[in-house]
């Protein structure tokens, strides 16, 4: 267990603490994953915990120049109840709704979910289909931005330097003629870790798929975009996209493991069937509009 617990009031204080402690200091937000990790490992190398969850600068949701900004310390309850998010990015609101239960959602943050980088993290597929940028601040206050897709390096590995902190995410608000979709395959309704999760942002213009982004989680070391299928579907007339053959490509994009939650075979089959069902469902919905 840690010896010192800090609750810095602003980012520069947090960065200073992080720099001072180096690897012995860990940034924490809601702590719903990390507190358990730190407690289980008995004598952990974490000497100081730096809690950034109440820093005001990273707790906002706002729109600027057609982009939606979400601070890294925004909780999943706040996402779920944000009228801005529900209106513009239902894919993220729906993912938030399906995370854990109310008590955890009141603490767990979107930044923590992404940086923790579980392959099954529910917030990541929606952010991937929104083509989100990750905003990062480093020692000395210098900031940089990186696409989420490039930020995810592997199972619980992200492209974050030791003295950096993720401050938030931002993305272009999808146009109104795009439909958004989130589905989580799970053994029970709540408090479950995804066996597989799927997010889609699909835009149809004049009976043709003008743009489509698909992301899946729990099927590879990181959540990832399903580009083979995206490329197949792009510019395709909607009636041709109802052919199951279009979705075969998902099997080459993903590489699921067998674990105690589900087998590789199960995940492969669910990935293909679910993707087909979801896209066709969205297309049929858009036919009626």
């Amino acid at each position, binding site marked *: 267990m840690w*010896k010192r*617990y800090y*609750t810095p009031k602003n980012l520069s204080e947090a960065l200073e603490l992080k720099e001072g402690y180096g690897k012995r200091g860990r940034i924490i937000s809601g702590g719903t994953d990390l507190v358990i990790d730190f407690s289980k490992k008995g004598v952990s190398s974490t000497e100081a915990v730096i*809690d950034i969850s109440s820093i005001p600068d990273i707790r906002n949701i706002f729109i600027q120049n057609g982009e939606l900004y979400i601070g890294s310390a925004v909780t999943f309850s706040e996402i779920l109840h944000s009228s801005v998010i529900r209106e513009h990015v239902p894919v993220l609101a729906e993912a938030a709704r399906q995370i854990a*239960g109310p008590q955890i959602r009141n603490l767990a943050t979107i930044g923590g979910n992404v940086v923790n980088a579980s392959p099954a993290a529910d917030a990541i597929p929606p952010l991937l289909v929104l083509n989100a940028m990750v905003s990062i601040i480093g020692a000395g206050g210098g900031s940089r931005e990186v696409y989420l897709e490039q930020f995810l390096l592997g199972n619980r590995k992200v492209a974050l330097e030791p003295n950096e902190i993720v401050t938030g995410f931002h993305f272009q608000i999808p146009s109104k003629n795009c439909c958004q979709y989130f589905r989580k395959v799970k053994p029970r309704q709540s408090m479950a870790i995804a066996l597989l999760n799927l997010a889609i942002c699909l835009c149809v213009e004049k009976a043709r798929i003008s743009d489509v982004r698909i992301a899946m989680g729990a099927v590879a070391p990181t959540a990832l975009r399903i580009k083979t299928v995206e490329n197949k579907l792009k510019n395709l007339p909607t009636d041709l996209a109802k052919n199951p053959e279009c979705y075969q490509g998902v099997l080459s994009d993903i590489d699921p493991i067998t674990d105690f939650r589900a087998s590789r075979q199960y995940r492969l089959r669910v990935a293909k069937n679910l993707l087909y069902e979801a896209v066709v469902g969205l297309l049929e919905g858009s036919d009626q509009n």
Partner: protein
Amino acid sequence: MKLEFYVNNQQVSLEIEDNEMLVDVLRERLGLTGTKISCREGECGSCTVWLDEKPVNSCILPAAKAQGRHVITIEGLGNLESPHIVQEQIARFGATQCGYCTPGYVMAAAALLRDHPHASHDEIMQGLSGNLCRCTGYTRIIAAVESLVDSSVEIPLPKELR
């Protein structure tokens, strides 16, 4: 470290270890043993308390997070002499057996009814989904909570937030 916060509307100031969890501070240092410990990993909801009015799992909440904030425990909601209406309904419906999970359910249900006085069945299921009960099979807990929908439930608020 020095922890200064409000517990059941009373200002509390005490010396704690930096790595203590809120549930341990409440139970061991303040003697508020109504809040239960079961899984200690945020899965079961037995340790549910309100932090600034929001239900949270106090077993995975470093007490340091409560600095300057308001915590409401089951003791702050009601007691034998003057039970909270959710406690009354749980008793009336026989929605408890061993009783260990009950304080957590009361805290979750009272927050749910406060925020959604007209909660639908689905909203009740969602609102109680962070709690586990191994005795009752849930039916009576849900019925007890459902019986309070559309009634005026009196929920104590921290003074500063009124």
